[in-house]
């Protein structure tokens, strides 16, 4: 879809990009990563001709971009810039339809598109459409920036640190949304970041650069397992095994047939439940399936009363979302001292759980030994 052939950009003495060759297949997410000043932004901006290369050729859809009118080319490449750059005098809705307006769509189509895109990026259309950029938080503005880049449904998206300006929590939410959106839309995405975890989580392929030169271009697994040189090895970090967990989604490995009990059941009644014989933990769910807590059969066996065996929790705090990565799940488990953790959907409905042995298995050959599990699925200290 996008091909760079020996592309070089020189600023006086500095080689911002040095004979870069890159082939990005359609429908894939290519993450450009590397230390500050390594030429990521320059590379991205040469693709939509905001910067002209000193030498070399860039092809989009087999057409040499030099032969296209820049305006024409850019309208087909959605562009989300690092600093968002929303137009402050236009509403969120008007910002989003910038490109459709240039393409002279009719009013109904644009209105429908605004509603669709705001819903897609998780902002309530009725609430946000009429707001002005200065009324938005940083995270909301970045979502609008992404919606604006998507507006004319371009086959290619160029995103320069689109989640750069938000707190880590919002960042993770936006990443999860990106994964969800990309699963449906299958765009060709060139995504710039300097966050290794973000790259591993989002990329189909990672292009690691240094001083304008490409160091390695491969899938995240490949780059983690077989770094091409010492720089790649060091850049990806020492905890490569742990990072690999960032590639695995909780929903792909979780156990779904977890034992549940209605949370309105009286504690005393649980003692007689047969399920206690097989499982140590019973998840408590409310009428609509939301996680409300759990019941520990072991506590009962130890002679504790039924009340002390029952723990009430808030699903927002003591569970992970199904689109979280195993890395996140592990870090939550270590944080709470759990050996397994419940998995919920966006409304808090219990979907399953993940236990330490599962994570160990996902680590593959197991060059890292996470704290030994006691072997029992669903065990907690």
């Amino acid at each position, binding site marked *: 879809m996008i091909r760079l052939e020996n592309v070089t950009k020189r600023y006086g003495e500095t080689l911002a990009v040095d004979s870069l060759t890159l082939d990005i297949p359609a429908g894939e997410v290519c993450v450009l990563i590397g230390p500050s000043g390594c030429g990521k932004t320059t590379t991205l901006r040469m693709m939509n001709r905001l910067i002209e290369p000193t030498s070399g050729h860039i092809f989009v859809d087999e057409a040499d971009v030099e032969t296209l009118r820049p305006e024409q080319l850019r309208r087909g490449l959605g562009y989300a*810039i690092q600093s968002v*750059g929303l137009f402050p005098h236009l509403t969120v809705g008007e910002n989003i339809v910038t490109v459709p307006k240039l393409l002279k769509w009719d009013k109904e189509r644009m209105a429908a598109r605004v509603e669709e895109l705001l819903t897609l990026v998780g902002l309530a259309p009725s609430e946000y459409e009429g707001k002005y950029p200065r*009324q938005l938080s940083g995270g909301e503005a970045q979502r609008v920036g992404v919606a604006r880049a998507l507006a004319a449904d371009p086959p290619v998206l160029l995103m320069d640190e689109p989640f750069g300006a938000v707190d880590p929590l919002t960042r993770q939410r936006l990443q999860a949304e990106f994964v969800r959106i990309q699963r449906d839309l299958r765009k060709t995405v060139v995504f710039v970041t300097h966050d290794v975890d973000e790259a591993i989580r989002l990329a189909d392929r990672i292009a690691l650069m240094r001083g304008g030169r490409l160091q390695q271009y491969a899938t995240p697994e490949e780059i983690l397992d077989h770094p091409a040189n010492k720089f790649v090895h060091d850049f990806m970090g020492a905890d490569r095994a742990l990072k690999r967990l960032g590639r695995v989604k909780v929903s792909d490995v979780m156990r779904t047939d977890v034992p549940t009990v209605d949370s309105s059941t009286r504690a005393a009644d649980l003692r007689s439940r047969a399920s206690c014989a097989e499982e140590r933990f019973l998840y408590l769910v409310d009428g609509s399936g939301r996680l409300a807590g759990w019941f520990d059969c072991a506590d009962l066996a130890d002679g504790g009363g039924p009340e002390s065996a029952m723990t009430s929790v808030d699903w927002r705090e003591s569970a992970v979302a199904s689109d979280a990565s195993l890395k996140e799940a592990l870090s939550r488990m270590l944080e709470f001292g759990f050996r397994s953790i419940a998995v919920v959907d966006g409304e808090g409905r219990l979907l399953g759980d993940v236990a330490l042995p599962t994570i160990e298995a996902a680590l593959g050959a197991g060059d890292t030994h996470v704290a030994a599990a006691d072997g029992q699925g669903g065990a907690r200290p």
Partner: protein
Amino acid sequence: MGSAQSRRIDRVAAAGALIALAGCVWLPFAVSRANRIVAGVPAGIGSAGAPGYALALLAVLALVAALYPDRGRRPAFALASAAALAAILPWALGRSAVTLLAGAPAFARVSVGGGAWLTAAGAAVVWFAASQAASRRTLGYAAAGLVAASWALAFAFGGLDRLSLVMEYAVQRDLFWSAVGTHLSLVGISLGIALLIGVPLGVAASRVGLVRDVVLGVVGVIQTVPSLALLGLLVVPLSLLGLPGIGPLPGVIALTLYSLLPIVRDTYIGLAGVDPAIVDAGRGMGMSRLQLLLRVEAPLALPLMIEGTRAAAVTIIGIAAVVAFVGVGTLGVLVFLGWGQQADDLILLGALPMVVMAVVADGSLRWLGRAVVSPGLRGDLR
């Protein structure tokens, strides 16, 4: 606004009320003369009878409003007393004129005294302070309408027509209106030409560094040349071109040149101040240079461009008076005529309309600035 409300005393309004009160009791309210040239005899507020005492009472009321702890009603109360002051003032002046002229010879005339001017100024200050604190604008508009109606009625029935200022007007009516017309058209044409030249120059200055240095330098130098000197200097190039050095042409050229600086400078600053990230986003989404300018940069620079136009308008309304020197019949003609005849009221007849024009131009362009600028750029958005 919030601070003025939370303060125990509205100091600005209090100062205005004191000024008005001083005007009522301290300075002569009106000045009478046996004829146009001789020295005047001052007369106190007593000459204005009941309306005069009402003025003094209202000034005290305004003072009380400014000093009394605010329970939310203060702005309305202060605005009402300021409006009442402004509405009763013409009736007091009219009554004073009628009283002082009773039994005097036909040449006798009554001028507006320092006290009356001071009262008017004080009322304006209270008005300003109250409208800053007021939450709704409608109250101010209603009060302004009331005052205007009161003045009109005072002309017809209140004896205001006996004031020498009004009598000068009666004599010079034709000259007055032609001067107002000339003044307005000269200012309007010059401002229009300056906008036609200045906005493109400002755009060019924001694009090309060399143009910026040259243009901003040149218009800056022009602004420092005194207006009379500029009119004199214009004679040379105009005569070289075979054009007249006097008349409307040099007038329009001079006023256009003076308007250029604020318009060019503010257009340039407005465009240059647009966040580069915003321009970058627009380019990256496939806007052409022109689309970027018209849809993004110009709307963002608009508040400053209107501000530059406002500054230019207010400046050249004043300078247009000087243009009378090169034989253009602006309001300056009345002022110079008054100087020549030592007739203060004739000077005033020329000066007052210029003040009104400047205030109206200032107010309406400020209003325009608020009306056309996107709510997304305004400070009051929450």
